């Protein structure tokens, strides 16, 4: 197990380096001059040069990358061009907000998705199955920002029950005011993962139930509940990895949903960075998100290896 863990950790290094290089390059191949947004319209060529030098944009790309990476590993992601504040601080704050939202959305999506998927897989080809499948397809294909807007119109504008904007004042806390802010965005964000988890579980559970060993379990006199326990154990590794991937997406924050609800997370930050052509902020945010994704994948793989005896651990 330890060897497996170490090897898996070792694989992460080249991925992380690649990811950082891509992050760095992505922004540089984007058209447009990053400084135009903040530069005075009538700036002289000399002023422009000075500004460029101040942000290190005058050096050759590989040098810029090495400098950027060297600082990044020390937690220095540069300063936001728009706000002038350190990127690291802004990203960490946004990541925390997105984490909270992702966590809340998972809390809704995973139990519900698993439950619906199991139900459909167990009663395969019945009306329950068809109902769940319809709901799942609708969940995946409805534009979720549209759903967000509808929810806001119903629960905030018409009924006035829940706030429509922001995450509540001050730092996040699990109290009533903050929770009332998170309900609508969390529901909106959970719809796609509900659909995906439900559909995956349905296929998985249906497939396991049609395997020979299930008949053998009945043949040895087990009850329906015992067999269900076996099916759950068999579905767990795949189910876990699907949820891990979904969690990864959720953690990335949703640009559209965070924008609709003014939720100050990474998605919101990204969209601001893009519209303001805030290069360091964009780079920093993408880098942190990408590394997050790598980390989540690593965790899922390791967890899967722990619970699935079929995966060779040496």
């Amino acid at each position, binding site marked *: 197990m330890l060897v497996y863990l170490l090897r898996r950790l070792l694989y992460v290094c080249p991925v992380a380096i690649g990811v950082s290089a891509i992050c760095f390059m992505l922004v540089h191949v984007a058209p447009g001059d990053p400084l135009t947004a903040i530069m005075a319209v009538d700036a002289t060529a000399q002023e422009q040069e000075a500004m460029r030098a101040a942000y290190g944009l005058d050096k050759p790309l590989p040098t810029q990358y090495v400098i950027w990476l060297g600082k990044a590993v020390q937690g220095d992601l540069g300063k936001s061009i728009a706000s002038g504040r350190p990127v690291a601080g802004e990203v960490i704050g946004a990541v925390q907000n997105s984490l909270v939202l992702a966590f809340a959305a998972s809390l809704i999506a995973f139990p519900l998705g698993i439950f619906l998927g199991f139900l459909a897989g167990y009663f395969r080809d019945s009306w329950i199955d068809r109902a769940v499948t319809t709901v799942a397809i609708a969940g995946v294909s409805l534009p979720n920002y549209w759903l967000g807007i509808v929810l806001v119109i119903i629960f905030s504008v018409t009924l006035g029950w829940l706030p429509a904007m922001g995450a509540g004042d001050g730092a996040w806390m699990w109290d009533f005011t903050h929770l009332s802010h998170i309900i609508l965005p969390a529901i909106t964000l959970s719809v796609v993962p509900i659909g995906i988890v439900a559909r995956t579980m349905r296929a998985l559970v249906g497939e396991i139930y049609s*395997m020979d060993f299930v*008949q053998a379990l009945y*043949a040895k006199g087990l009850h329906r509940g015992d067999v269900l326990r076996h099916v759950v*154990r068999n579905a767990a590794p795949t189910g876990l990895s699907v949820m891990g991937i979904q969690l990864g997406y959720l953690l990335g924050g949703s640009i559209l949903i965070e924008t609709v609800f003014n939720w100050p997370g990474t998605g919101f930050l990204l969209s601001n960075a893009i519209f303001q052509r805030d290069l360091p902020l964009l780079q920093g945010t993408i880098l942190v998100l990408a590394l997050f994704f790598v980390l989540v994948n690593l965790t899922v793989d390791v967890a899967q290896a722990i619970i699935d*005896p079929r995966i060779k651990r040496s």
Partner: protein
Amino acid sequence: MTDTPLLEISDLNVRFDGERTVHAINGLNLSLGQGEMLGLLGESGSGKSVTLKALLRLLPPKRTQIDGSIRVNGADIMTLSGRRLSSYRGGEVSMVFQEPALALDPVYTIGDQIAETVMRHRGIGRKAAMEVALDMLMKVRIPSPERRLKNYPHEMSGGMRQRAMIALALSCRPKLLLADEPTTALDATVQIQILLLLRELQREFGMGIIFVTHDIGVAVEISERVAIMYAGNIVEEGSTRDIIRDARHPYTRGLLSANLHNVAKGTRLEAIAGAPPSLETEPVTCQFAPRCPNALPACEKGLPPFFVPGPGRRVACLLENGATAD
């Protein structure tokens, strides 16, 4: 009590309704005495597995039409349900499957899989059940059984898995063991070891066994009595000795001669020309007629009844009509 047969199947019919209708079993009668070993022989698709599954009530209820009666130790099992069905399955009658790699749950250890069965049937705790599991692994002669208890199926060889499957099936001391081609998926040498093991365990536990195979050599090797199935019914039955010496049904004879010719090469029985019928409609004539070298015009006119050429024998073939007159 002693003369209650262990198993009595009368007039069993099984039909699958789906995209395609299959008349899988057509009026099958079969009985088995206490502690008897019967070889059930037939080509692939002749309905052997369906017969065994009907016996354990494992056929999918929605798509399956079953009628007829099945009695085990005098009790009607067609009406069992709920807890009584669960305690019958694995308790009174249990099954060894053809492919142990598929019939064992891949994510549970062998020990757990045996122990949970024992716990269900005997209502004992996990620790005591593990003791039973260990004892069973010793009985089926698995080396270093303590270690094997903690193994997952994929960590064992095919032969070892089948031994574990047998240990599982016998862990609650069933009166009847259904062995569905338990050696087909194994190498020849392992196959013989498993056969010997089954025969030994049968003597030790005194249970009845239905041993399903499509290999007449194996059937003859292991059983006192054989029944030959074709297209969802038995076409000939008798003691192993009688069948070898004096097979009456043209299908049985075909199987035997095909086997004799091919013993050395170890090939299978498909040497009889032609293919088995599709079973889409209920049989009304001798199902073997299209492939039968001895077919008479009368064979196409109706189902041949059973003739009794000797004690403990029956043959469903019109050729016996004249033969019995001798």
